[in-house]
């Protein structure tokens, strides 16, 4: 017993030493709060009531690091990174497409896809942008606006000449409501549009809340033409040269992979990076 007791003491001494060392070395984040940059009203990703899946992942990360989360809230629009991460108001973004130029992204922790959303009762079974039904149906797409850019399904449809039956929904949505981007999915459920081509994590989450059963199917082709991807890997991100923190995040992604996957599954995030049997 004495040996056991001594051993326990020794262990706690080591832990304490590590924590103390931690505060002086590059790993100061072990004691400092985890400072996360996030949108206060962007379910299913984040909101200020901490209901989004990125909120849950941030909480898991904070627990893993033995600290708590401290949020800097900023609408995830133009200037988001500039005013938050780059401005050093916070240190970590939980979700960004891998290889985004404006920040240093980690290895990805999930890969999702744009999806077709339809009412199951309609039996439309649309899988591809080349489905001839798309020439006549009312198709909801997310519009980014005028920032020299648009969502990949909007490009894929317009390069096929499918334009006049496209119905645009602002990707910003109605920011006064509790779930700004949900209108496009609700429009499918109500029958205002026949099909929506929308980003998977958003579509999966809101589809599950509708009063009717909606089908979610990854769009095809996943790489349209030579250059237009419909699937995106999502990473965490830090500022460039924030090496210690970046390393911690990558370790976390490896170590807590199963828990992260469970969180994503709980929000019905469509995945294209899991083996088939693990997909829902």
């Amino acid at each position, binding site marked *: 017993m004495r040996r056991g007791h001594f051993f326990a003491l020794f262990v706690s001494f080591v832990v304490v030493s590590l924590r103390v060392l931690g505060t002086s070395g590059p790993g100061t984040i072990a004691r400092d709060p985890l400072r996360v940059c996030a949108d206060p009203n962007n379910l299913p990703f984040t909101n200020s009531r901490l209901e989004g899946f990125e909120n849950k992942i941030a909480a898991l990360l904070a627990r893993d690091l033995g600290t708590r989360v401290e949020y800097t809230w900023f609408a995830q629009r133009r200037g*988001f990174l*500039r005013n938050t991460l780059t401005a050093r108001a916070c240190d970590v973004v939980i979700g960004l497409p891998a290889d985004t*130029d404006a920040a240093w992204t980690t290895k990805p922790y999930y890969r999702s896809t744009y999806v077709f959303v339809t009412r199951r009762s309609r039996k439309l079974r649309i899988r591809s942008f080349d489905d001839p039904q798309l020439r006549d149906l009312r198709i909801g797409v997310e519009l*980014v606006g005028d920032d020299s850019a648009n*969502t990949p399904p909007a490009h894929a449809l317009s390069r096929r000449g499918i*334009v006049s039956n*496209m*119905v645009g929904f602002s990707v*910003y949505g109605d920011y006064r409501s509790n779930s700004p*981007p949900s209108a496009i999915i609700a429009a499918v459920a109500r029958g205002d549009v026949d099909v929506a081509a929308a980003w998977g994590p958003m579509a999966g989450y809101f589809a599950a809340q509708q009063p009717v059963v909606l089908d979610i199917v990854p769009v095809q082709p996943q790489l349209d033409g030579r250059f237009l991807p419909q699937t995106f890997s999502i990473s965490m991100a830090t500022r460039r040269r924030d090496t210690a923190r970046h390393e911690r995040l990558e370790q976390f992604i490896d170590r807590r992979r199963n828990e992260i996957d469970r969180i994503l599954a709980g929000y019905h995030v469509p995945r294209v990076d899991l083996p088939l049997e693990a997909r829902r």
Partner: protein
Amino acid sequence: MRRSARLFTLLLLTLLLTYGCGNPASSAPASAAAPPAAAAAVSPGVNPAPDTSGDWVRPGRDYASTRFSPLDQITPQNVKQLSVKTTFSTGVLHGHEAAPIVVNDTMYIVTPWPNLVYALDLSKDGAPVKWKYEPKPLAAAQGVACCDVVNRGVVYAGGAIFLNTLDNRTIALDAASGKEKWATKLGDLSKGETITMAPLVVKDKVLVGNSGGEMGVRGWLTALDANTGRVAWRAYSTGPDKDVLIGPRFKPFYASDRGGDLGIHTWPADAWRNGGGTVWGWISYDPQLNLVYYGTSNPGPWNHEQRPGDNKWTAGVFARDADTGEAVWFYQMSPHDLWDYDGVNEQVLADIPIGGQTRKVMMRADRDGYVYVIDRTSGEVISADPFVAVTSTKGVDPKTGRPIEDKSLEPALGRVVRNVCPASPGGKDWQPTAYSTRTGLLYIPANNLCMDFEGVEANYIAGTPFVGANVRMYAGPGGNRGEFIAWDPVARRKAWSIKESFPVWSGVAATGSDVVFYGTMDGWFKAVNGSSGEELWKSKVGSGIVGQPVTYRGPDGKQYVAVLAGVGGWSGAIVAGGLDPRDGTAALGFVNAMPDLPQATTSGGMLYIFGLP
């Protein structure tokens, strides 16, 4: 007051014609450029009209938007003696695009967000603050504005100062006390709307337009009752004729603008609802025709394949009845715009001799790189000539009024398109020209920028990944990114020009002694000879200039020149927004053209007032 103003104008026209020294401005507002001597000569005697020739009551100075002041104490000979008389820090760091306006010995300035308004007492030494007004716009407005959180100025009318805030309010303040008289909310931040333009007051109406074409906003011009703030009418830029206020009086000059509900039919289904056509630029007014003129922004979304058609009524200019808002004519500079060529630039009204007769025209130095001379009674294009390098079009078809596009440059995702000139900010962006009735020249603060569209890049907004073209802008032919151009609208050519390293993003003020003032983004405030283009004087200020210079007569009877320094705006975002010069595609590709701006200047809003000894 109005009658005597007309009399002054008649006399002024006669004088100018007699002396043959220029092309008289026609539309004569109450604050017309009437020299004091002339005013005295025709005043009824009993109640002489106040001499307002020394004021500058709105950013465009007069309703014709000439930015020409008759003041002539500062001459090409003595301008070298100008020195700083007063400075005033606004305490704000973003792009200061406003004109400091002057009336009743008081100067009024408005800052970028948070849109502080200062009244400075010019009758006291050092121009101390008389009052300060804080509208406290929502912080969220900063995230919605596309191109820095700018404000282009306040306007004075009938004892009130009218202000637009970034969070979509129009506010009337008592000019003497700064007390709020009314405030009206006109737009919705959550839809991506903001307001950055300076209002124009015409008779009893305040005219205000929205910004946010980049955010899928539907554009409008709204008229408010100047006394109560109640909305009198709103004219949308897209949608059904009843929303656009198109009725029996609408007589566009060109066939492609005729037909019912073109604001719906020139779009795919419902796309007009998010079609852009915002009204964030300048408004002019012709009191004789009782028409207001303004331009509309580019259509959205950017990917033009998603909006086949002419996309009425975007990227064009409207003439409307000033009282009712009814559309009278429309001309579209860029039908189905491909390049973000907003049509919001100012229209300078003048009567100039063309083909042996005097024509009532508006002159527009447009984003698309052309100076348009348009008959302002009918909307007919009299001439359209490039004032910068233009590759995106090969001229304007005189029969149809439509640009002749170079189809080989049409943008498509995944296709590299090079050497598109002018770049998206245009041959000239919002920064307004000045027109001198004495020299007959239009002074254009111009950009010389071209751009490439290449590749695709994943990006993320509101949790949604998307792809877009990389846009990179760079200096056009000659290597200079800016040029200050004196344009002869009658001869249809440059009279002279000055090359500038950076885009010239400031306004211009022209004077009765042919001295012309403008500023540069690296912080030089310059005076040039309006006839010859000779540089007469320059002074370095604390930050780059993207504001609008004014000149006025002070309480001491002396002429002064004032300008707000404070770099920013779209072109200056690399400094005001602290963008990384290594990411050339930031600020929609503008950063690529401006990597050296942070070395040339730093941010900080400061008013400078210059005067003679």
